[in-house]
């Protein structure tokens, strides 16, 4: 049985499971011969995964078409990865980033490693970069903290609940938050959030040096790009209508970001100061 095949443009797409403590991460490697860079894609939060999946995969293929080897994956306990979501914390997902970045870098240490995160994934990418991992980092719509992203997901969920449930059935956001703070689980879009997840999310913040590119340029000697996506980028971010956005043309987003990665590689080669992981 085969688990690899050629995607669009003759790029080999190899799906597999990556062994981590207590679980297996589902990964897809978009493999290119003699890559100019390796890019680790760090995706959005669990409940955003399924809406953003199509453009996320297309972005991976777009980069692979530019001779960049791409690894995308599902967090522990999410999507095709194994593990129980309700037992997960941000520490597990931070570890996922570190292990996969290490694995990807080890494939050919001389090829620059680029981290790219979306939404909560951008926070995790930024923190890994801040710890010295990766030669450059691209952040799409990073929230100030994981807590902010969770709160925003919860508020949206509560809004939907109120649209479709009667007054007595639908809880307020304050009630959900109270339950979390009292140690109970709550269910949001099919995922059980633990109080530990909620509590720890406050500690998972975007490094202050990454709040904007100007500050980042002063703080790091490696390229950093921060892009705030608007509604045009749906369904990569929330704001669209599922079933309509899936075939959208994202070249307006992909082309300049891919060009930035290419330019960042040149910059890394120029000062020969690629971070060693």
């Amino acid at each position: 049985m085969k688990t690899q095949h050629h995607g669009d443009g003759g790029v080999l797409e190899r799906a597999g499971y990556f062994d981590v403590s207590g679980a297996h991460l589902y990964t897809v490697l978009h493999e290119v011969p003699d890559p100019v860079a390796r890019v680790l894609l760090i995706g959005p939060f669990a409940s955003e995964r399924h809406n953003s999946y199509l453009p996320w995969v297309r972005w991976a293929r777009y980069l692979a078409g530019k001779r960049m080897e791409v690894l995308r994956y599902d967090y522990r306990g999410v999507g095709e990865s194994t593990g129980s979501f309700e037992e997960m914390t941000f520490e597990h997902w931070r570890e996922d980033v570190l292990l996969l970045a290490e694995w990807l870098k080890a494939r050919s240490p001389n090829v620059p490693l680029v981290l790219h995160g979306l939404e909560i994934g951008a926070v995790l990418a930024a923190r890994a970069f801040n710890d010295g991992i990766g030669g450059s980092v691209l952040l799409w719509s990073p929230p100030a903290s994981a807590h902010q992203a969770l709160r925003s997901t919860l508020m949206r969920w509560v809004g939907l609940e109120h649209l479709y449930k009667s007054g007595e059935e639908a809880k307020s956001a304050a009630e959900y938050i109270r339950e979390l703070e009292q140690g109970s689980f709550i269910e949001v879009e099919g995922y059980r959030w633990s109080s530990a997840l909620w509590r720890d999310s406050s500690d998972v913040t975007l490094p202050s040096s990454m709040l904007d590119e100007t500050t980042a340029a002063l703080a790091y000697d490696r390229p950093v790009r921060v892009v705030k996506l608007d509604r045009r980028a749906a369904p990569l971010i929330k704001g669209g209508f599922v079933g309509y956005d899936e075939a959208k043309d994202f070249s307006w987003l992909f082309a300049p970001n891919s060009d930035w990665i290419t330019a960042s590689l040149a910059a890394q080669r120029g000062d020969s100061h690629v971070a060693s992981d």
Partner: protein
Amino acid sequence: MLRAIEGRELITLDGDGVLLRGTFHKPQAHAPDAEPDPGTRNPVGLVLLNSLSLPRAAAGDSAVYWADSFASCGYPTFRFDLPGLGDTTGEIPTELLSFINAGGYGPVGSAKIKELVERFGLSGVILFGHCAGAVSALYAAAASGEECKGLILLDPYFHLPQAVRPKLRQKLSDWALQSRIGGLVSNVYDRIRDITLILRGDALPGNANSSLLSCWKGLASTGLPILLLKAPARKAPGTKPRVGEFDYLKHVLQIAGRKSQVAVQLIETADHSFANRAGRASVRRHTERWLSDSFPLTKRGEVAVNVLCTDTDNKKGYAKYQLDCLHG
């Protein structure tokens, strides 16, 4: 990277130049190499299809939960990404919903069912689809013939919905949902529609998906086992539609005919996504009960399947076959 872990294997179906990516959930006690032994044959498999543009894990990863559950009951279960969806390559049309409603995934679905049946030595498959996935399942089943042994349909729809509602309509709808006066206006609007509906009699609405209804009739009237699971809808009591809306469920049960084996179950704890914990657990329970009745596992690894067969007069009928053990 591993291609297989305990209970699961990543697979591709690459026949006829179309390559699908998927996950195989191995039935409990299945051989670790995931290939049937030469001396065994004829388990019936379950195939879960994408719902609209969602990847094969589905909302809240509910499809993973169901696939694990069915496999643990002994049924080989497969989840695939159709072309252009999830991890499977391919272009998807700009109007994906219209493409699906017109049966766009029917031919590839049918071809891949044949390929899967041959490769895994299955007696056939039961197709499982939610919403637009149920529409694709019906078209694929109709194109498949004998390889499709049953259908599990979650909130199927038989009309042609608009992919995007006009902005004014959407705003009116939001207003009706959010305000008391809007709610009252909405109720009056429903009553007016109801009167129109009564005046029209049993005539199908203009936006009925006639080709899908034709597929349904062709399948259900042969006696194909079908489980139809329905989530409560807003302003709709039980399995009944909202006041003023055509009762498609009643209609499809009528056209299914006397030989039909259609079981309908309301999943009261679910919303339309079926992703919430109580809803998905209820889907699991009802499906497993239905599987046990229609495709029973009689003892360890042994499957009794209602097989659609052709008798000597070339009339289709049902006969119960005791199939060989999965593991010899």
